[in-house]
């Protein structure tokens, strides 16, 4: 009986986790892929590991530390590249490794055994708490509202920032808010996919969608669906095979991407053939 309740909770957690992860990753992922911010987002992810390390050391929730580090590093890259005139990719490279270094230093300075370290690097469904799921749920609502209400404003700033400045004085505010929300999205998904793999959770689904459509809104919808299929399947495989969930999700998503690509090529070949006949 007890085992059943445990299993039931586990399944609910898995389903909700998959739904919220795919919503947040689909919305944030479409933005970063369209705006070519994948490398920046990778930098944010790894820099946030510094916050996880400090969180452990100071005895506060590592996710909170990661969130602070994630947002600060996103704004830090902007500061270093715009104000200090350091090349953006170099600034990302510096913060990327600096965050990892801080994380490792503080985790090793923390007395006692740190059992969750692997789960932060590679993701683990077992350590995902109810609070994590609730936080992801709230993040889903925030992102849906944010992108829903300001859809055109965000789309147009991201497409042509210079032109947007001719009609709006809110360009910088929107850029900072969007980047901060993306940093938060990444951090909240780290529990599932892990620091090393989370960036693929954001980038693979939009790339699956973009095989079939090049319209922003449709990319969002299709990448949420593709993300859900990949995440849910990854969960099941992870559960039965006892492999870390982050790795199985990413592996599944890449397989879906390859299948989508092959189907698309076959369709194109077939329709070309028809066209010739």
């Amino acid at each position, binding site marked *: 009986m007890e085992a059943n309740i445990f299993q039931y909770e586990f399944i609910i957690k898995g389903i909700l986790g998959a739904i919220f992860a795919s919503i947040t990753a689909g919305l944030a992922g479409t933005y970063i892929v369209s705006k070519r911010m994948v490398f920046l987002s990778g930098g944010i992810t790894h820099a946030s590991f510094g916050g996880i390390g400090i969180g452990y050391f100071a005895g506060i929730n590592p996710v909170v530390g990661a969130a602070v580090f994630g947002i600060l590093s996103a704004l830090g890259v902007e500061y270093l590249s715009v104000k200090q005139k350091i090349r953006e990719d170099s600034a990302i490279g510096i913060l990327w490794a600096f965050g990892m270094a801080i994380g490792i230093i503080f985790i090793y300075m923390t007395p006692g055994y740190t059992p969750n370290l692997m789960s932060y690097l590679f993701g683990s469904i077992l350590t995902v708490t109810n609070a994590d799921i609730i936080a992801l749920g709230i993040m889903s609502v925030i992102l849906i509202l944010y992108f829903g209400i300001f859809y055109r*404003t965000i789309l*147009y700033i991201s*497409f*042509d920032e210079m*032109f947007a*400045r001719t*009609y709006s004085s809110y360009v910088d505010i929107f850029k900072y808010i969007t980047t901060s929300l993306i940093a938060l999205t990444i951090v909240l998904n780290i529990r599932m996919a892990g620091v090393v793999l989370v960036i693929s959770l954001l980038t693979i689904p939009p790339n699956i969608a973009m095989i079939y459509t*090049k*319209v922003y809104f449709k990319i969002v919808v299709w990448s949420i669906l593709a993300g859900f299929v990949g995440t849910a399947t990854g969960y099941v495989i992870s559960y039965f095979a006892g492999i870390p969930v982050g790795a199985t999700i990413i592996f599944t998503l890449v397989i879906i991407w390859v299948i989508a690509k092959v189907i698309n090529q076959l369709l194109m070949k077939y329709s070309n053939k028809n066209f010739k006949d």
Partner: protein
Amino acid sequence: MVLMASLFEMHSLSASYGTDFVLRDVNFTVSENDFIGVIGPNGGGKTTLLKVILGLLRPAKGEIIFNNDLIRENRIGYLPQMSTGDASYPVTVTDIILSGLMIRKGIISRMSSSDKKKAEMVIDELGLSELAQSTINELSGGQIQRVFLGRAIIGDPKLLLLDEPGNFVDTTFENDFYEKLKDLNNRMAILMVSHDVGIISSHIKSFACVNRSLHYHPSHEITNDDLLAYGCPIQLITHGDVPHTVLKYHK
């Protein structure tokens, strides 16, 4: 002589980036229905002039006074250099053209059915109907130029600013494009920046030479005889009977 209403006036205006003055002591008035070619060397301040008009750069000295109607309705259309938009962004032709209406919308912007109808009309006018739902990466350079022109004119501006339209690579549409501008000039004043004299079309009514300072040459001043008058530091090399325009010395 018919007195044209002025759209804006610049009085002793200077503009700078930090300590570097790019424009000095500019006095410049643009009237309704003028078609001005802004010429001058690279780095001479042509784009800076546009930035001041668009409100992207505050004058360091002097002032720019807009005609009240122009300010109230925000009616300036702007066609930037091609490089400002991401040509592989997943955005449709219709959506790009609709973004020209954002100037009159808040940050929470829904496009009404009349906005969409207006976009359809502009798309028709520019011969883009078949591409309305295409994304920008499916278009040629000339088509992208027309889409950005659509974005600039959907709000029925009284003033249209064009920054180096010759930079769009597609020469097939170049003639069509300038014909279109001539057409639009019946509805709005046009200010066209170019460092490439070759693309200054014969539809232009007057010239503004910008090289730190600004010298305006109204159309009635133009003569074909004054061959030594190199008003601007520009060079025009042609073969044979090419119609040419020579401007008077700057005083």
